[in-house]
């Protein structure tokens, strides 16, 4: 039920991340997110904006999509005063640094937001019979940042890509989200931003070093 949710129903206003549990694709951040933040172990479990969830599988994809959509639609109806733009600061492969510019609109309410940044790989792991979407490969709780109306804070995070990521670079996505600074759920997610499409160029093109760049690459 995941592909239609991502590709057809909410292509522009949902960032879905897949967090694996108890298999070969777990991450330190993903484990902490479930056991420390949500303090719950069951899968499958779908959380929207860290406030509403659908636990379990209803046995029918259409029913499952309807369950998820109800939560997503509910959250889409809630106004927000936060915006996030994610950009590439430097790519020195296999490492990369990315920036989330987290802003509060002029009419917003001053408060502290907790910023997370994760990198995902879409259509991974490569297992037959199921299309795993936006699987988390690495994640960070970057920090807490006080925000005032009409103000932005640039938040940077370094990531380390591995061979699987780089061989499937078009499917990499860097996702940042700003959340209420609670250590445990519920903690409302105010906004999400991402890099898309993600491109890895050759010869230092994205780092700004054009000396070695030629017309033949990328």
């Amino acid at each position, binding site marked *: 039920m995941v592909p239609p949710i991502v590709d057809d129903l909410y292509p522009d206003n*949902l960032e879905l991340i897949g967090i694996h549990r108890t298999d070969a694709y777990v991450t330190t951040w993903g484990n902490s997110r479930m056991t420390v933040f949500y303090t719950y172990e069951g*899968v499958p*479990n779908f959380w929207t904006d*860290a406030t509403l969830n659908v636990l379990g599988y209803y046995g029918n994809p259409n029913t499952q999509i309807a369950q998820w959509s109800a939560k997503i639609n509910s959250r889409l109806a809630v*106004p927000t005063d936060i915006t996030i733009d994610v950009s590439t600061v430097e790519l020195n492969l296999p490492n990369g640094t990315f920036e989330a510019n987290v802003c509060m609109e002029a*009419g917003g309410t001053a408060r502290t937001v907790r910023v997370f940044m994760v990198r995902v790989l879409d259509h991974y792991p490569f297992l037959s019979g199921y299309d795993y979407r936006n699987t988390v490969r690495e994640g960070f709780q970057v920090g807490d940042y006080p925000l005032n109306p009409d103000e932005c804070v640039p938040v940077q995070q370094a990531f380390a890509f591995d061979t699987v990521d780089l061989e499937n670079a078009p499917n990499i996505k860097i996702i940042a989200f700003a959340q209420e600074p609670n250590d445990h759920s519920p903690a409302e997610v105010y906004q999400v931003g991402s890099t898309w499409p993600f491109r890895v160029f050759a010869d230092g093109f994205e780092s700004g070093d054009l000396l070695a760049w030629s017309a033949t690459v990328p």
Partner: protein
Amino acid sequence: MVRHRAYLGATLLAMAVIAAAAGDAVAAERTVLGEYFNATW
């Protein structure tokens, strides 16, 4: 008269720009975060 019309046009344009800028203060468009906890069984 032509000069007065030009001033009036410039004033109306400035007012339109100010109104458009004021309109930017509306709530931002939300993107929802979906966290799907799952496993490869």
